[in-house]
């Protein structure tokens, strides 16, 4: 068996255009040149060097192929030292085993020659290392675009394949959720109470924000206009109230409990104003109702109201009353009531004496 026969096996060589061929061929050429230098050559012509490099590459390829086939013959996929020895014997073309000595590793002439060769070169310290450092090749192009295309292997993903018959270098299996329905995960435990508390807290936050916005708007109105509008009076009092409240109440509580009252105060006052302008007596009566709980007055007061419209002063007084401190307002309201009652009685008397006179 000769090298020549093997090269005509019909194997396809590397096309010169492929990048790996160029790089490896150049590296092999420099290695062969170094070996020739140790033998004794100083200069080389390119054609013989190229052909010698080709021979060396073919030698390695043939060795590998033969060793692999010997391993496969014995039912193994990974090669042995004995496979290599057999391949060497095969390649050398010596008919050592023709005498039938039996195959043993060291009976191989080739191997002995190699051992001698190593000893000679080791002893002679003619060891010439490859002068250039080769990078680890082939360099994978996965980093750029192919990363998205290629499926990572089991080793890369870090999973162990299901079943010992599957090697690690094969692409990993797809995740089970891609091909079958898997149950949804409940990542956090149910906490209804906590959720409710959280909800309430968020609502309070929103309310606070809304109220503060209202307050700001109202403040702007009051500071902006100089006219004495109904709203102004109330706001002034409300402001004072708020200030009082704020001064009284400590900082911490201000936000939560009292703030609602404060914040709603302008709205409440505004509502009260509207009511007052129309049914001031009724409102007072209602307030009185809450305090004294008397029901007899509504009829009389309604009458009073209609009549009151003609009276300028008492109406003004009531308006002025609004402008004052709310803390005093209750007493003053009582006074107003008394005054009204007195006026009513006077009127009645004025009418009555007429009647009486008539009588």
């Amino acid at each position, binding site marked *: *068996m*000769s*090298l*020549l026969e093997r090269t005509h096996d019909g194997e396809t060589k590397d096309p010169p255009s492929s990048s*790996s061929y160029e790089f*490896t061929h150049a*590296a*092999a050429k420099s*290695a062969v040149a170094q*070996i*020739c230098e*140790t*033998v*004794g*050559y*100083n*200069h*080389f*012509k390119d*054609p*013989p060097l190229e*052909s*010698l490099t080709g*021979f*060396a*590459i073919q*030698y*390695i*390829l*043939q*060795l*590998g*192929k033969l060793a*692999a086939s010997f391993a496969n013959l014995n039912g193994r*996929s*990974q*090669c*042995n*030292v004995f496979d*290599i020895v057999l391949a*060497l014997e095969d390649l050398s*073309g*010596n008919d050592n085993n023709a005498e039938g000595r039996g195959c*043993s*590793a*060291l*009976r191989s002439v080739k191997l002995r020659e*190699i*051992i001698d*060769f*190593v000893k000679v070169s*080791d002893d002679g310290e003619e*060891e*010439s*290392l*490859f002068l250039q450092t*080769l990078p*680890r*090749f*082939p360099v994978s192009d996965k980093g750029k675009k192919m990363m998205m295309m290629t499926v990572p292997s089991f080793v890369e993903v870090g999973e162990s394949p299901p079943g010992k018959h599957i090697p690690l270098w094969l692409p990993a299996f797809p995740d089970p959720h891609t091909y079958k329905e898997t149950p949804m995960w409940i990542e956090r435990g149910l906490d209804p109470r906590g959720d409710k508390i959280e909800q309430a807290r968020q609502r309070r936050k929103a309310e606070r924000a809304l109220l503060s916005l209202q307050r700001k708007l109202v403040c702007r109105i009051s500071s902006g206009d100089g006219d004495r509008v109904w709203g102004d009076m109330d706001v002034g009092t409300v402001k004072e109230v708020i200030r009082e409240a704020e001064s009284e109440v400590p900082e911490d509580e201000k936000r939560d409990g009292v703030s609602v009252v404060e914040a709603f105060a302008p709205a409440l006052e505004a509502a009260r104003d509207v009511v007052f302008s129309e049914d001031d007596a009724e409102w007072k009566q209602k307030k009185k109702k809450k305090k004294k709980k008397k029901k007899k007055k509504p009829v009389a007061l309604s009458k009073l109201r209609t009549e009151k419209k003609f009276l300028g002063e008492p109406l003004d007084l009531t308006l002025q009353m609004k402008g004052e401190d709310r803390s005093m307002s209750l007493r003053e309201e009582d006074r107003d009531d008394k005054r009204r009652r007195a006026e009513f009685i006077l009127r009645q008397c004025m009418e009555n004496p007429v009647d009486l006179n008539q009588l």
Partner: protein
Amino acid sequence: MNHGQQSGEAKHEDDAVLTEFLGSLMDYTPTIPDDLVEHYLAKSGFQCPDVRLIRLVAVATQKFVADVASDALQHCKARPAPVVKDKKQQKDKRLILTMEDLSKALREVSASSGGFDPHLSIYGVNVKHPEYFADSP
């Protein structure tokens, strides 16, 4: 029995020598780098994680190349030196690897074959420089 025992002992010796040799391989770094050899072996289907086997292949290849080169060198030295014009000039010092020497070395019949088959060349490679080209380059 004796033969069997002897063969058994020989086997043990062989194994010991082999393991020793493989151990010595790690000390000696072949000229051909391991990566290159591994690349070509992988191409041909040789699969082995052991570095020593790769080094064995590298050493074998190195020996092969060294043998061929030394044969060619002998041919180069054996060639008669060119005419020396200057007397002080010594014999041919420029050892250049040429195609002729290489083809002779590759076709050489080694002495070990014992003339068994004169036409069987040791390397089995017929390398010859083409005398003329049929097509223009």
